[in-house]
């Protein structure tokens, strides 16, 4: 692992570690929790043939929507892309491979990689089209589907607060997939609105302990983008 005292760095240096063809988990459910600044740096640097793992495809012109529009994503593992017309078009045109998982299974498959297991046994989706094609085994007189963990080379996560060792604190519904991905990927690049000295966070309030985080960068809250579909009920 990266040494504790070598993690805090410039955003471009952090993103430069990502190579063409990498698999990358990206935090966020809609806009909250999406690491917009890290994604913009990735767009800028030009890495391509990426596999992205994200709950949704953001919207057409923000977050991973920009990478999809720019043709930089070969494959997307997700639960729902309904708010991104371009992603749906790219999928229908065969330029983007989209692998759909029910959201709770997607979360759990990522969590499973973070826990260091091969997979888990579930009854979710048995008897449905989306649950077909999985290996099934019988245990205790019932049938269970094997759901293998999802791994990735990198995770890009968004936190509200961090310290220089890489401890992370999330806020509100920006938590979502971020702590799961921060445990699951080989290397984890985190952005935070504020990066404090070690000791600046309360031990009980840390969601992701620094042991899981490889690089930490500070970003301006103004780089956050607002999902256009977000609206009052």
């Amino acid at each position, binding site marked *: 692992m990266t040494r504790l005292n070598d993690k805090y760095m410039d955003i471009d240096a952090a993103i430069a570690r990502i190579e063409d063809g990498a698999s990358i988990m990206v935090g966020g*459910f*809609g*806009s*909250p*929790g999406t690491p917009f600044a890290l994604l913009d740096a990735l767009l800028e640097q030009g890495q391509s043939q990426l596999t992205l793992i994200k*709950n*949704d495809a953001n919207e057409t012109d923000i977050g991973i929507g920009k990478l999809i529009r720019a043709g930089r994503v070969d494959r997307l593992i*997700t*639960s*729902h*892309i*309904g*708010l991104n017309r371009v992603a*749906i078009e790219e999928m229908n045109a065969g330029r983007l491979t*989209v692998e*759909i998982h*029910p*959201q*709770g*299974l997607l*979360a*759990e498959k*990522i*969590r499973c990689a973070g826990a260091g297991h091969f997979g888990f046994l579930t*009854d*979710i*989706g048995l*008897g*449905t*089209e*989306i649950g077909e094609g999985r290996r099934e085994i019988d245990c205790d007189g019932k049938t269970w589907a094997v759901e293998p963990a999802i791994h990735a080379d990198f995770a890009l996560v968004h936190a*509200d607060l961090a310290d220089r060792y890489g401890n992370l604190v999330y*806020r*509100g*519904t*920006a*938590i*979502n*997939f*971020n*702590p*799961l991905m921060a445990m699951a990927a080989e290397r984890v690049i985190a952005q935070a609105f504020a990066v404090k000295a070690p000791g600046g966070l309360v031990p009980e309030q840390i*969601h992701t302990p620094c042991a899981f985080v490889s690089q930490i960068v500070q970003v301006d809250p103004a780089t*956050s983008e*607002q*999902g256009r*579909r*977000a*609206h*009052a*009920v």
Partner: protein
Amino acid sequence: MPSDQQRILARAAGEITAGQIVNLGIGLPTRLFHYLPPDLEVLVHSENGVLGCQLIDDGAEADLEMIDSGGAYIGTRPGASVFDSALSFAMIRRRRVDITFMGAFEVDRQGNLANWKIPGKFSPGIGGAMELAQKVERLVVLCSHNDKHGNPKILEHCRLPLTAPRCVSLIITEKAAMRVTHSGLEVVDIAEGLSVDELRAATEAELIIDESRLERF
């Protein structure tokens, strides 16, 4: 005279009781927020990771990190918590959500539900609907009785890919409220001014109707 949506929502709100944990699906169910009395002690779960959602006041500035699963900005009420997606779905799979409201493309006599895919036309992904439908204690479907071409949505057997099999407890449309029972769909309420024959004509599924016990809504 209430609109069809208002009729559905007002009837649906009666299914929620104090002390419950409630999930409101995307679309029409989300509008149930407006039918919950502010002093009713209910925590609304949203699968993106919050328990205790609340409408934000008109004109109040939205917190950009607080949305519900439909992407609407929300606030929280006292007793609320936020958490990651794994915990959120653990709560669902462990049946800690008392009641969930969802829309439907099709629903049938056995309580099968299809609401995520129309092959060749619409397949944006299933999101969190599968776990919510399969594992909630009580699933209430809110939908129009017929599609925009007038075709029945309450069927003998769903034809679209299922969200989950045998998951629905109650169906509320602008025409009727129907309980899913072992014997089939039992009409409990029928809309003001609608005849039983009109209801049967608009429905593909066979309906169990005891006219002496029908309530109007």
